[in-house]
């Protein structure tokens, strides 16, 4: 085609000047701003911090901690993709360090170190939200079984679903899904790896050995009567296992506000 052809000339000559485009863009942006404000997602500060459980991806939103993501076992891309569905991520190493500092203190045995507020915004399902909320009531130094946790949210046969809810917990450590174990005493799986669960439970006073079982010297605490017993106490054997928490030591049960049984005298 010759450059003189009107069709070609149309494409080569009829460019819209940049000033016109910039003017139109300014106009569009001005009108756009109030409309964007309506749909804009909140910002979340994101960073990576080191911890005894490996590197962690941390996200903090305006209403609290949103995400603790084990980078040893889970993909960073997946974590960020989850976060982006509800928040606009902004890199902020300082916010991540603040959380990392609390986690490191927690790992060193400081039981009240995890004081940052949790925000369950990234939880999608109502069932999971209820399970995680009830789980937060399980104190330091105690564990609950998948079955018992299911019972507390009114679905006593949903232990598998509780397992799934724990597996996709967006804020492990802070929402203590490591404190959920199998009914047969084996500690079960963990998002950060089983070894990580062992470490976390050891931090809370459970002497977990190679067999990945809870130790026999743990004590049983009743959530309703607030009494704790030896596991072989006749009162403990009669108690509903769904209402029972297993404490690492009598001391941690006392710390959680329970009193010792007057029959079996757990030390």
């Amino acid at each position, binding site marked *: *085609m010759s450059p003189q*052809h*009107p*069709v070609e*000339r*149309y*494409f080569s*000559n*009829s*460019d*819209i*000047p*940049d000033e*016109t*485009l*910039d003017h*139109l*863009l300014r*106009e*569009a942006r001005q*009108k*756009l701003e109030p*409309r*964007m404000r309506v*749909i*804009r997602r909140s910002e979340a500060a*994101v*960073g*990576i*911090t*080191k911890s005894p459980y490996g*590197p962690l*991806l941390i996200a903090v939103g305006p209403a609290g901690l949103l995400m603790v993501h084990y*980078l040893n076992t889970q993909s*960073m891309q997946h974590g*960020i*993709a989850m976060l*982006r*569905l509800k928040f*606009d*991520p*902004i*890199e902020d*190493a300082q916010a991540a*360090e603040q959380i*990392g500092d609390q986690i490191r203190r927690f790992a060193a045995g400081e039981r009240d170190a995890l004081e940052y507020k949790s925000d369950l915004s990234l939880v999608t399902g109502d069932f999971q939200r209820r399970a995680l909320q009830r789980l937060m009531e399980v104190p330091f130094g105690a564990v609950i079984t998948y079955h018992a946790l299911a019972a507390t949210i009114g679905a006593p046969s949903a232990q598998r679903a509780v397992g799934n809810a724990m597996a996709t917990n967006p804020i492990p450590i802070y929402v203590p899904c490591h404190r959920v174990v199998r009914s047969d005493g084996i500690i079960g799986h963990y998002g950060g790896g089983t070894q990580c669960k062992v470490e976390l439970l050891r931090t809370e006073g459970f002497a977990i050995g190679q067999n990945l079982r809870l130790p026999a010297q743990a004590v049983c605490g009743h959530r309703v009567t607030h009494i704790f017993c030896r596991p072989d106490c006749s009162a403990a054997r009669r108690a509903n296992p769904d209402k029972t928490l297993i404490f690492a030591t009598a001391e941690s049960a006392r710390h959680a506000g329970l009193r010792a049984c007057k029959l079996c005298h757990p030390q």
Partner: protein
Amino acid sequence: MMANPGLKLPPPFEEAIAPYERELMRFMVRMTGNHDDATELFQEMCLRAYKAYPRLEDFSEIRAWLYRIATNLGRNRARDNARRSRVIVDAGASYREPASDQIGAQQDVAAVRTLIEALPEKQRQALTMRKLGGLEYDQIAAALGCSIEGARANVSQALKKLKAEWSQL
């Protein structure tokens, strides 16, 4: 502690689309033939792109992705307009062609534009993206959701048709 080189976050939305805003606006003025409609369409595109931004995974695709949103919106708009009224409004009313004013070929330009507007939707968009947006064929293909050969064919058929119809004028 040091900044983590491992953390790779997507750029904020405004930053991500900034390099393409001007060419997208040009594309929209072409597509609508009208400044007001173009600014309106641009806003719609931003809103829609922002909502869908979390689902964009491959950031090297963002230019084609934005064009795809723009062409889809343009198609919806064309369909709605056609449905709403059959009355042909002078779409070029607020549209000026400053460069062609200078060379005094206004009639030719208007005629070519009429011919372009009469092209099938896909050909018109492919041609506009190629000739006025300067996109590569793979990007056009991604935007239109067709193969690269398809994109190439759409552009060349559009040109062929334009020339043929021009000679019949």
